[in-house]
């Protein structure tokens, strides 16, 4: 996949992810609709590839207004990742040379790797994660209806201990997937399955769509920079 193909795929996926997020705000008060209806229109233009650079700049503007409206990200990490992808794409389009374009888009790939690596590091230095107790508490205290049916997991400390270490090991080892294309594809499938499980069990649907949107950047990066 060359950089043009990877960027176009990212633009389409970002447009779809932004539409998914924005539609969730349409039954909200008018001050939210004023922000999210234009975002839907701009996302549609992004998907069809109409004046992409200008549309991306406009989306950055709308995103800043959304940040101001909610005094920060509405949906924590998923909004931050969405903004990161948007800014990297915008900079890649505005880049004065091909080198700077690759730096801007490659930065997104680096941030994706760090998102897993740092997440794994935060867990491994936390005794509650190392013992499996953190995951026990997640199942014990969750208020999401689907996972309320899975509260029984909280009573299975050995299983959650193994699950905790699987998550920690996967996140810490994720950067090694860059060494081989096939390993990277397998790692991304596992990561996507992890996000899908979080979406089903804990209602974190936005994370699934937006993290997948960053995947073309790492596939391009691995294919072009790792021998």
């Amino acid at each position: 996949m060359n950089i043009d193909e990877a960027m176009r795929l990212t633009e389409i996926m970002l447009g779809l992810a932004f539409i998914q997020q924005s539609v969730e705000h349409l039954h909200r008060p008018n001050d939210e609709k004023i922000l999210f209806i234009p975002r839907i229109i701009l996302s549609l233009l992004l998907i069809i590839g109409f004046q992409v650079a200008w549309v991306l700049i406009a989306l950055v503007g709308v995103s800043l207004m959304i940040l101001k409206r909610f005094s920060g990200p509405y949906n924590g990490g998923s909004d931050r990742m969405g903004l990161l992808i948007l800014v990297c794409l915008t900079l890649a389009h505005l880049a004065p040379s091909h080198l700077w374009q690759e730096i801007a888009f490659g930065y997104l790939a680096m941030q994706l790797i760090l998102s897993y690596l740092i997440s794994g590091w935060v867990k491994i230095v936390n005794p509650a994660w190392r013992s499996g107790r953190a995951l026990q508490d997640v199942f014990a205290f969750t208020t999401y209806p689907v996972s309320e049916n899975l509260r029984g997991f909280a009573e299975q400390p050995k299983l959650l201990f193994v699950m905790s270490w699987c998550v920690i090991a996967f996140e810490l080892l994720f950067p090694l997937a860059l060494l081989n294309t096939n390993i990277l594809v397998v790692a991304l499938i596992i990561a996507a399955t992890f996000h899908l499980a979080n979406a089903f069990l804990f209602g974190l649907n936005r994370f699934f769509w937006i993290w997948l949107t960053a995947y073309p950047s790492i596939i391009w990066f691995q294919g072009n920079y790792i021998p």
Partner: protein
Amino acid sequence: MIKRMVYNPWRNEALFIASCAERLIKDEMGYGTHSTNEIIMRIERDIADGVMIGAGQYLQFRLAFISREDDRIVKHVLHLSDIIELKRGAAS
């Protein structure tokens, strides 16, 4: 469950309210007033919509945080809002 993969506004709003609660406790960058207003607006809307039952004229909310201390689960009420007059239907 499949539908909630693409449309799950109530869950995402619940996550936003949890963020507001955390910001309110930390009073990050002086966002306490904004967070209070966001929470109150949603309580008023839920009362107006019948999602939440509220028969009185005034509204007050509290923020309770659950944490683990050794082997015990403890609940701390870390914030009690001011009492405000309920605006029925205003936020729906």
